[in-house]
């Protein structure tokens, strides 16, 4: 894990707003091995979508601070110029399936042309015909019939459009695909089908995935590793097995026990209080106010510590 394909170190992304700077991503560090899937779970407003944007440098205009290191294959892509990043990283090394991707397709272009676009832009296909061949290939990978290629987005169902968006991310064969809530707007059955598709992709390719989601139960379908995000920081990163069976951070524990289950009957718990504002987050541990295990030391910021192969940002594990 240490010498993984992707190393993110002390990544920060702050936004400027009318009410003050928002520390959406504030010192995030994690490592991810090639071919593994990391699920970043967090509640709304925890900064998980901003993390995806920060890794792929898809920044809005109101960026106040954007710093840290993102190593892909030991190259710090943060040091690249915007132009270099566009040519050498985006689509080539890393692609994004944006949130609500089923609505992100251009309604007046045939899906094949949209999916082929990155190929043509990056010169990975010389002719349109060659590009369509590759599009047909990725359509197969995501379980879309190739005769859908010449359709327009509105002729496809939500699930099909979502698959198209994933196909678009796959088409240039990047090393890393970041998916932001890929299934949240879909129906249960469609979502399960899509998860099957993603699982198959995971097994059949060498790609590395980062899945951003608030749905802890569905996340377990894909996760090799889990990172828990709270108030702009990663408070725990573990293997999926450790996270789902023996989470370390008090927040992780409470989060897991708040997830309803279908097959087993368990007592649900909720986390009292609300997450802190990212505009002026509390000093020290950001979860301290809601934490049942809080003690004196929590007023200082805990370091991210290694505990049995996991990393946890909590004074309980010193």
């Amino acid at each position: 894990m240490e010498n993984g394909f992707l190393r993110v170190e002390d990544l920060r992304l702050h936004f400027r707003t009318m009410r003050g700077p928002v520390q959406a991503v504030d010192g995030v560090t994690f490592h991810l091995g090639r071919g593994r899937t990391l699920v970043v779970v967090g509640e709304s407003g925890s900064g998980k979508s901003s993390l995806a944007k920060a890794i792929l440098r898809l920044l809005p205009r109101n960026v106040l601070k954007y710093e840290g290191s993102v190593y892909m294959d030991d190259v710090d892509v943060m040091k690249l110029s915007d132009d270099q990043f566009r040519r050498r990283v985006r689509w080539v090394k890393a692609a994004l399936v944006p949130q609500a991707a089923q609505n992100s397709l251009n309604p007046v272009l045939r899906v094949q042309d949209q999916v082929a676009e990155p190929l043509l832009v990056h010169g990975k296909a010389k002719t349109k015909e060659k590009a369509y061949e590759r599009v047909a290939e990725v359509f197969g990978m995501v379980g879309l019939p190739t005769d859908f290629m010449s359709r327009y987005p509105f002729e496809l169902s939500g699930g099909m459009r979502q698959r198209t968006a994933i196909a678009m991310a796959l088409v240039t064969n990047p090393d890393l695909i970041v998916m932001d809530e890929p299934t949240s707007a879909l129906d249960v059955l469609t979502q399960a089908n899509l998860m099957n598709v993603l699982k198959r992709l995971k097994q059949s390719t060498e790609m590395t995935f980062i899945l951003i989601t608030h749905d802890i139960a569905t996340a377990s379908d894909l996760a090799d590793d889990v990172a828990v995000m709270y108030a702009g920081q990663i408070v725990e990163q573990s293997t999926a097995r450790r996270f789902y069976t023996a989470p370390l951070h008090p927040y992780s524990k409470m989060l897991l026990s708040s997830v309803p289950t279908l097959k087993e009957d368990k007592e649900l718990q909720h986390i009292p209080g609300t997450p802190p504002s990212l505009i002026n987050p509390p000093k020290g541990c950001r979860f301290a106010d809601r934490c049942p295990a809080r003690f004196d030391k929590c007023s200082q910021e805990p370091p991210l510590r290694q505990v049995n192969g996991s990393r946890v940002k909590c004074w309980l594990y010193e």
Partner: protein
Amino acid sequence: MNRVVKGFKDLAQYPSAIAGLVLISLFVALAVYAMVTMPLGQAIELWRGSGDVWQYTPRNAAPAWLNVFPGINKPVTMDFNTANMPEAKTVEEIAPGMWEVRVSFPFDFTYDEFPTEINVFTTVRNSTARPFFSMRWLTPDGREIPLGDVDLRASESFRLGQDARLTRRLGGRPAHMGLFADPNASEAVPLKGRYELVAEALVFEPDTELDVRLVVYGQLHGLAGTDHRRRDLTVALLWGTPIALAMGLMGAIGATVTTMAIAAVGTWYGGWVDNLIQRITEINMMLPGYPLLIMIGTLVDRNLLLLTAIWVALSIFSASIKSYRAMFLQVKEAPYIEAAKSYSASNMRIIVQYMMPRIIPVLVPTFVGLVPSFVFFEATISVLGLGDPLLPTWGKVLSEAQDMGALHNGYYYWVLAPSLLLVFSGAGFALLGFALDRIFNPRLRSL
């Protein structure tokens, strides 16, 4: 109250809002000043210019403050009146039953150019016999020019420039030039220094009152200059302000609030109500507005209120009703409307208390932004010749300036002042509107 304070704090973050507010407050102050100092009736009377209200002001004079510019030193109007200056008049009984009234108006003339006219007015009261009256003109170089003598009637005006005999005596120059000209210069140049008008009258009754008024008409006059009918433009410019603001505000309120209400009703009820409103709008959008106004103005009445009302009605059923409708269609589907239905809120209540407030954020900036267009509307119809025949307005000034070929004749101030007032009042509301738009529509905020 807190919301108001917070609103102002938000506004204060936008320089354009501050600029707009400053401009608007200046105009409001001007409007208040106009209404306090001069009742509307008086303003209308003045502007109509009946009688001899304007005989003491020059014709087509530029504003007096032009003299502050270096290189410009033109005469401004000088007005001397014994009614205001008792010290200028002495009365002496020179014989039993005969008094000599002596009036002397000494003044310094320091300008580089000649006045435009010079007139003397006299009034005599309580006199059965006509007083005998004679005038002399004393120049700085010591010459004394007799201006003639006459038996005075109750009121007389001596338009010295039109006195042909005097003109002849002055070497063919009319009095306002000849009296001031330097006799030693070959060209017509005014001689600077102290002049004096001396008027002497013999009256024959003890209680006879005689007043003399000397007006040396300048090339410059007042704050805003005068027009072809000697009217001081300040009157119209000043009173134009409250009229413009009232027009702008009433028009904008009519156009926004009514439009919104109609759009809300149409959207909520849908069906034929909505269809009717839509069709009226579409037909109205095809109608040419100004030609319609010209027709009504010519055939019915050139009343400003009526024309504005028609214009507001035309703007109600315009493109904006479509954009409000689009917004209301969205609002109508909002879950909170559904919730209101679920607790039996009536249609009227939903429209007025649930749908309309949702649009206020869009309405306020639109409203402020619409004000200038109604201010300009008055100017437009005046220039088209549909202006209210009585009211002193900016548009009327512009319209008359155009009729008299103001720019052609070099009376630029006549056009400039009302135009600038229009521009700045428009700018004030527009600047405020832009800022409000950003505050109310966070999507437009540049972060």
